[in-house]
């Protein structure tokens, strides 16, 4: 097998040029799936017999929570690729993924709070899953803060990639310990709707929304990566040509 494609992938210029062709497809598919999923979920899926219409926020909440966690792994893995193969592009992807993941974690927390008010009667509970998501949010913020703290870009890249990796090792431990802490402190009086017991008529729109969120994530990540490539490679010839700026004058 040839590894040429892998090494090509490391070139920001190659990625920028290739991804222009992917963008309309990614964006179109993402928006289509999201539109279908939202109309299906909000308009046609049956009402929940206990929660009424308020359960419908699940169609935003669950996909956002999925992507919040997957996004951390995407960020950490691209950071690891950058550390191991010294790829410029993967650090850019890692940095681009951090704010998107943090935003999705926030959306998951926020929609959870909005959902919690009618179902549990309170916006915030120190439930195991909510607490884990909150800590995940802090992990994202830490990576973002560290990557911005260095004046030299490469150091910020490597340092935040290492922190993301340390976080990856910790996420299962944190998740298990928070779960354990919750069962120790509070009896499980509140139960979230279990995804496995959901009726097919509600489940199919949910799957559509999750697929839509994945594509949407890929689309936004590509867009953000492209913007960051332009920002970082602003001094190179091809970016200047692309933007129609004059070539740098030699002193």
């Amino acid at each position, binding site marked *: 097998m040839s590894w040429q494609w892998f090494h090509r992938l490391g070139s920001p210029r190659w990625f920028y040029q290739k991804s222009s062709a992917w963008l309309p497809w990614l964006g179109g598919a993402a928006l289509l799936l999201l539109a279908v999923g939202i109309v299906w979920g909000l308009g046609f899926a049956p009402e929940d017999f206990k929660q009424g219409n308020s359960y419908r926020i699940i169609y935003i909440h669950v996909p956002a929570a999925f992507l919040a966690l997957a996004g951390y792994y995407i960020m950490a893995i691209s950071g690891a690729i950058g*550390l191991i193969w010294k790829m410029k592009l993967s650090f850019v992807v890692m940095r681009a993924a951090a704010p998107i993941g943090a935003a999705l974690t926030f959306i998951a927390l926020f929609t959870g709070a909005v959902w919690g008010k009618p179902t549990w009667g309170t916006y915030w509970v120190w439930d195991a899953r909510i607490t884990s998501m909150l*800590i995940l949010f802090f992990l994202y*913020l830490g990576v973002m803060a560290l990557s911005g703290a260095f004046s030299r870009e490469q*150091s910020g890249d490597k340092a935040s990639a*290492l922190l993301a990796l340390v*976080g990856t*090792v*910790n996420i299962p431990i*944190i998740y298990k310990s*928070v779960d354990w802490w919750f069962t120790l402190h509070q009896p499980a009086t509140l139960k979230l709707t279990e995804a496995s017991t959901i009726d097919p008529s509600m489940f199919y729109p949910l799957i559509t929304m999750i697929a839509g969120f994945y594509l949407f994530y890929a689309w936004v990540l590509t867009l953000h990566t492209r913007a960051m490539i332009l920002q970082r490679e602003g001094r190179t010839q091809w970016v200047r040509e692309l933007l129609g700026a004059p070539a740098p004058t030699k002193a």
Partner: protein
Amino acid sequence: MGPDAVGVPLSKKAYSAEAGATQDAYAQVPGFYTLFRTELVLSARRRSDIVNPLLFFVTVLAMMPLGIGPEPEMLSRMAPGLIWVMSLLATLLSQESLFRGDYEDGSLEQLALQPQPLYFPVLAKVLVHWLVTGVPLALLSPLLGMMLNLGAAGYWPLFISLVLGTASLSLIGAVGAALTVALRRPGLLLALIIMPLYVPVLIFGTGTVQAALDGYSFGPQLAVLGAILAVAAALAPLASAGAIRISLEN
């Protein structure tokens, strides 16, 4: 300067001298014992580095009853959590300077230039940090337990859990200290990146004391704390070593 210019000949000389002077056990890990002893002596000479985290610990804990009220029942309910959270903060605050002095005078670079892995120097420094902050914190904990009206069953578990837990805290915090050593004012950033990683230790640390207070066996919680320490001792110095190399490039 390159590694062959200064680092290798100097350290090789140091090895042979060291191997002759100490037992074979230390010769397995050249320089570990020397660095450990040097760090310990340095910490003993800089008393404020040892005393300040402890004073912080005691002072902030003395503020707690003033803030939440002096009712003994409430204090005794909150005591394990308060003492543990304050140990977290005290460890974190003292950790900022873990690699700073060595970074500023260049000895961290010399350590990194040595042909041996950075794992052991980091482990030596963390061990000293734990001996001068974690262990005294644990030794002080009965006094604070008394001030906060901790139940009699909680003293011994609190002490053991603090001894085990602060070692993990020192190890995990070393990663953050190594990542931020090249920054000018890392204090708040260090707290921001390290606090979420402290969560498991905090949960099982307070869990130990709570289980003992509720009359249950606290062995399982201590076992988990020990497991966390084992994983942290294996992995955290590796991550710190990587982080030190990144910081030195800056």
